[in-house]
């Protein structure tokens, strides 16, 4: 198992280098020098300042290989430079504040999606073409097609404006400091309900679909027949033999869908004014705060890489064929 995990790790290293490559390429995407572009949106004074800062930061007068090498050296020391915003704080501090919020949201979303998608998928697969199956299929198609920002606005109108049950912005109320311990917790949770509901909606549709598909394939297998034939109850056959095998492909899909989930935080965080990485990214793009944009991009990609690695290792843990078979297969 250790070998398998190590091999995965070694395979991920080139991707890590690749991430820095792509991110660096983005800086040079703009026609001409990247510094020229800022002129259009900023006023002349701050634009001249930004040019100067960018030139210093990326050494834009040097050969491109030298630029990349210097930039890489700084990234390796987690030095993303300072924000162009008036506060001029180090990018690493800004990201450090917001990373836990985005991570927490994504982990909670993931847990909810998995906890709901598995039983939903199982139930619709074991009762294929039943009313329940048809209802969930409709839900899946609508879930795929619903724009998350629209769902967020509708829920805000309903629960925030019309009914007034839930707060629609930020993570805490203004009078949070004056609340008692329990009220503080409740306040925090109530701020999370709508964002998490929105973020899980689309993902839930996808995952229950995959789970259904996977389950449908598994219950046609011979070993399920033989489990039934030896007299096991339906509950054991489905709940143990079939479920375990049907969940295997889900681990991979989980890993593959992480970038989408993390990317989704851009919209959810912007709408609900949640101080996470996504909101930081949108603000930085509006302010043309290039060091923050680049830092964000690198951190988010590395985060996805790590998450994919974890999913790979988890797959090896649950499926012995993967970690032992390794080279021989395919």
């Amino acid at each position: 198992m250790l070998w398998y995990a190590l091999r995965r790790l070694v395979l991920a290293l080139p991707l890590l280098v690749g991430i820095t490559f792509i991110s660096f390429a983005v800086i040079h995407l703009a026609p001409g020098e990247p510094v020229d572009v800022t002129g259009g949106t900023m006023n002349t004074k701050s634009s001249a300042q930004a040019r100067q800062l960018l030139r210093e930061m990326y050494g834009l007068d040097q050969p491109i290989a030298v630029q990349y090498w210097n930039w890489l050296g700084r990234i390796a020391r987690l030095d993303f430079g300072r924000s162009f915003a008036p506060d001029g704080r180090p990018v690493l501090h800004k990201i450090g504040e917001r990373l836990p919020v985005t991570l927490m949201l994504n982990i909670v979303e993931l847990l909810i999606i998995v906890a709901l998608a598995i039983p939903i998928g199982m139930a619709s697969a074991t009762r294929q073409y039943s009313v329940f199956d048809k209802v969930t299929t409709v839900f899946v198609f609508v879930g795929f097609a619903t724009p998350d920002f629209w769902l967020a606005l509708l829920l805000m109108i309903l629960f925030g404006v019309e009914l007034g049950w839930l707060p629609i912005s930020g993570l805490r109320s203004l009078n949070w400091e004056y609340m008692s311990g329990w009220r503080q917790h409740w306040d925090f949770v109530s701020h999370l309900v709508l964002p998490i509901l929105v973020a899980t909606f689309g993902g839930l549709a996808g995952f229950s679909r995959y789970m259904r598909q996977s389950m449908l394939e598994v219950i046609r297998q011979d070993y399920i027949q033989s489990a039934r034939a030896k007299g096991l109850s339906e509950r054991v056959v489905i709940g143990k033999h079939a479920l375990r095998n049907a969940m295997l492909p889900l681990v991979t899909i989980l890993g593959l869908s992480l970038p989408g989930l993390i990317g989704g935080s851009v919209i959810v965080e912007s709408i609900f004014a949640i101080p996470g990485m996504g909101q930081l990214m949108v603000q930085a793009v509006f302010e043309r705060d290039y060091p923050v944009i680049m830092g964000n991009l690198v951190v988010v990609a590395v985060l996805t890489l790590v998450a994919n690695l974890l999913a790979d290792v988890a797959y090896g843990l649950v499926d012995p064929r993967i970690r032992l078979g390794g080279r021989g297969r395919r």
Partner: protein
Amino acid sequence: MKHFWQAFAKNRLAVAGGAVVLVLVLLALLAPVLAPADPHRPDVHNMLGAPSAKHPLGTDQLGRDVLSRMLYGSRVSLAVGFVSVGIAAAIGIVLGAVAGYRGGLVDATIMRLVDLMLVFPRFFLLLAVLAFLRPSIWTIMAVIGLTGWMGVTRLVRGEFLALKEREFVLWSQAVGAAGFRVVWRHILPNAMAPVLVAMTLGVPAAILTESGLSFLGLGVQPPFATWGNILNEGKDAIEIAWWLSFYPGLAILITVLSYNLLGEGIRDALDPRLRQSRRLAASRG
């Protein structure tokens, strides 16, 4: 082909999806004829007007007719959807064909590039790229296309890997056809079916992405109307003008839903053939 149409016609949902897609394309093409008002003309006497006989879907902050804006907005959505998917498919077909046909180091390099692109959460990458570019409908099309070719690449590569071992390909190679000719005349046409399905399903995904970017205010810029930026303006008025947020989102939902139903219908109708070719490929080891 006949089997395909028979199978497709039986799938009522897919036919309905296809019909709605057709209607949406017509609405977009005929927008100047159908729109009840000029989508850019403000009306200070009727700002944030509720839906009425004159303005069936209400008016926005500047008193512009929402229905007209949505009709013109559908042109943007469709154009972005088709063009960006076209770009993505072109890149994906070329890279996938090269990777699958050449194999070896070329294949390994291209597939690592695919893995690499997939490590970036799409929205973060899009925003980072857009931060360096001037937002316009062309840049939006380009960046959505340039960040969305990985799926097609994998698909085409897989088809090529299976097809290049088939007899008719081996035969044409044996009689001395040039590599390009083998790929273009013999392999590619046989690999196109799943690509067409992927493209049909790619259009709604691109439309969702564009409307998300426009909603954030980073996509197609006003005064051009798009469903996304009408929603963006509607966001500031959700407490008083629900119609500004409701209808454009509903339009996106219906559009994406119809394309998805159509795409899945096409895939299901093609499936027997696809499954057969996979099984053949598998049995050949």
